[in-house]
């Protein structure tokens, strides 16, 4: 019976596998410079002589290049590791940026209500009426026109984070606003008001901890979305430059060679992207079910 109750507390197998995959990917991402055989950002570390070598397990493969090389002779394992790193950093950055902005605005709108609420939510409506990709293309287009090539290289991740987050915050703001309105009607918030605590303190110390679980759920589900948006932008050429490629950039490069037999250049990074997004989504769905307030006991 004891094992049975332990089983009940454990998440399903798919979630365990997804978590393991995610942990492995995070470790790879953090230690990429140590693990990767070469540094794709360092032009001296690779040579055009090695270009377009198929993966090691295929005929004509080279044991130095486990997953083969791309059209510039870069080791695919290394480019994918660094690309994964960029994708994860941009995804997390966008989620954090959007969450902070959305939570603050949602709390303020829900707490004060009335005119403040109307203004914040109408702004949110305007933001959400433009498709994410369109806004992101616009912003990165402007950035590209204004910044020099070197500056663009340094600023590209920030521009991407900003352009993705500027649309995503609305979701957080709407959810947090709704949850805040539920919480302020409850007696503990009314008690805090009667005690005389200032609004910022009531919002930060009393309401926020009680609505954070729904924020965490949206954040996880949005992480997958943000990574995909970044990949889409890079694939369209509005994201990371080929010299500093993310997974999306790699797929774009590979796409040019997809039908000339060099399938691995596109398929390898695409597979990694699919696994990453799938793992995040599985965990996100589990968290959503787990934190579902209708299923939670009071």
């Amino acid at each position: 019976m004891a094992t049975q109750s332990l089983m009940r507390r454990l998440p399903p197998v798919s979630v365990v596998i997804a978590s393991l995959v995610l942990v492995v990917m995070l470790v790879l991402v953090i230690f990429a410079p140590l693990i990767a055989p070469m540094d794709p950002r360092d032009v001296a570390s690779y040579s055009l002589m090695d270009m377009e070598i198929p993966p090691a397990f295929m005929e004509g493969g080279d044991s130095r290049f486990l997953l083969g090389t791309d059209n510039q002779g870069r080791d695919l394992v290394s480019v994918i590791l660094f690309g994964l790193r960029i994708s994860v950093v941009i995804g997390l950055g966008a989620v954090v940026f959007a969450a902070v902005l959305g939570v603050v605005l949602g709390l303020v709108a829900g707490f004060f209500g009335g005119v403040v609420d109307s203004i914040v939510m109408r702004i949110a409506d305007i933001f959400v009426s433009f498709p994410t990709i369109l806004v992101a293309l616009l912003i990165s287009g402007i950035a590209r026109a204004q910044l020099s090539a070197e500056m663009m290289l340094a600023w590209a991740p920030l521009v991407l984070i900003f352009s993705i987050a500027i649309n995503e915050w609305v979701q957080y703001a709407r959810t947090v606003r709704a949850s805040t309105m539920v919480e302020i009607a409850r007696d503990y918030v009314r008690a805090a008001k009667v005690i005389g605590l200032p609004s910022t303190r009531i919002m930060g110390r009393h309401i926020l901890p009680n609505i954070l679980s729904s924020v965490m759920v949206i954040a996880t589900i949005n992480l997958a979305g943000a990574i995909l948006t970044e990949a889409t932008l890079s694939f369209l050429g509005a994201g990371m430059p080929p010299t500093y490629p993310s997974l999306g950039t790699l797929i774009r490069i590979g796409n040019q060679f997809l039908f000339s037999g060099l399938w691995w250049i596109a398929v390898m990074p695409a597979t990694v992207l699919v696994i990453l997004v799938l793992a995040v989504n599985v965990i996100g769905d589990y968290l959503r079910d787990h934190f579902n307030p209708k299923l939670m006991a009071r």
Partner: protein
Amino acid sequence: MTETTRPVLDIRNLRVEYPLANGDTLVAVKDIDLTIRPGEIHALVGESGAGKTTVGNALMGLLQAPGKIAAGSIVIAGKEINLRTGRTEGIVPGRDVGAIFQDPMTSLNPLFTVESQLCEGMLTHLKLSSREAKARALELMKAVGIPEPERRLGSYPHQLSGGQRQRVVIATALACNPQLIVADEPTTALDVSVQAQILKLIRDLADQRGVGVLLVTHNMGVVAEIADRVTIMQNGAVVESGPTREVLTAPKAPYARTLIAAVPPIDTRLERLPVPSEETKVTLDARATVRRKSAKSETGSRDEVVLSVRDLAVEYGGRGLLRKTSVFKAVKGVSFDVRRGEIFGLVGESGCGKTTVANTIAGLVTQSAGSIDFEGTALGGRREKSIRQSLQMVFQDPYSALNPRLRINAAIAEPILFYKLASNADEARRDAKTLLEAVGLPADAGARFAHAFSGGQRQRIAIARALGPRPSLLICDEPTSALDVSVQAQLLNLLKDLRDLAGLSMLFISHDLAVIRQMCDRVAVMKAGEIVELADTETLFTAPKHEYTRELLRLAPSVERIMGRELASA
């Protein structure tokens, strides 16, 4: 109603179990026996968790999985329940057993008209044609006393009042001529005047149609009013069972005696309610400390007016950003004074505006007209920090009054630190500990979260938190209406004790006249946003002037009044 009549319900040695996740078994109902004859109303009383609702669910086949009937037998109208399935061959819930649930707001489907909900059971169970069903529905609506039954058949539930909805629920329960009705707290959500009508309706049904009624309730007054027999339950077991008058006037079991004694009487005022006191030396010491620390509010004489409310009016709605909404006048010109050290009561039925008055004084709602003077300062708009500190509030629902993510210590220490009543966090924590002891909780309670406590304990914590800023006026908005009677009695005693600490004044809001009589020095009776009568408690209860007050007093179910009357007539 002779002994030879076949009982409509016969329960023998019923045992209901819930397997728990850790492998143990929770026995919700332990070996109870219960018999109901036609025309008999049998009340099942007990505090929350006593298992009384479980009995009702078991015989209706409504036990929630994994709960199951582990042993015993249930015979409904001569047919025995199948223990394995929890259902009875030949007995259909809804046809042979009718159900009346607690909340008339949720037991009707908001998307269907009254007629379709009434006819549904008749069409499926009795195989009536829709014309016959409609005729019978109309007949039932008349029987349960709904005005304009033809028009009301076409209404949706939201167009009916709470009392009318409960009548529709009763009509639905009666639709298929059941022999047994299970009524689970049928009047708990209703006002006294509506409650009196519904109880009379149930009594009439039992007398005229010979329906057996299992009445699940926690209210002894209701039991005294209509039940023929009563069974008192505690922790799933029967403590005492017998004819209502015998059990209520001369309970034999110790638990039954405590339970009945804890019911606040409406006819007399007791110094303290007779429940086991929790006044240990620790509690008394802690209270002495609290009294010493709040010495500042002992200045001022007892007759000094602390709070003065004049022509207070509160309106809801009316001001939208882009559109006008209709105005609802919740409070229309209310005036009263609260003196130092006094407990002032506000009593009235739901929707009379008593909670709005409390919220306005507490600053949660802004008045639209009138003035509130608190210790010589006019309140309204932004309030001084010292005003907010002196005015604290205890809320109705102990389950939502504490932040689930804060430890109790932190919750109590927060206002103490905020008002700089302690110089550092350590001192605040010590103060929190003292306050916890003063309200009769162990000092180590502070390290836990709110969910570790029962409703009564949570309400004590909420009181401790409200006392932290050393208020001079404590607003109590129905502080005990969500609690069991014995817990209520303890809390009422506690609040009385705390009032004696440092001349704390209280504004005490309740719908329960008996509680008001026990607690308050003066009372104002509210109706539809106005005060209809304001008097000393004793004057109000012994010589009520206003018609409405007299009606409230007459309708409130009360054990000793009904039993007293019967004793006198016997």
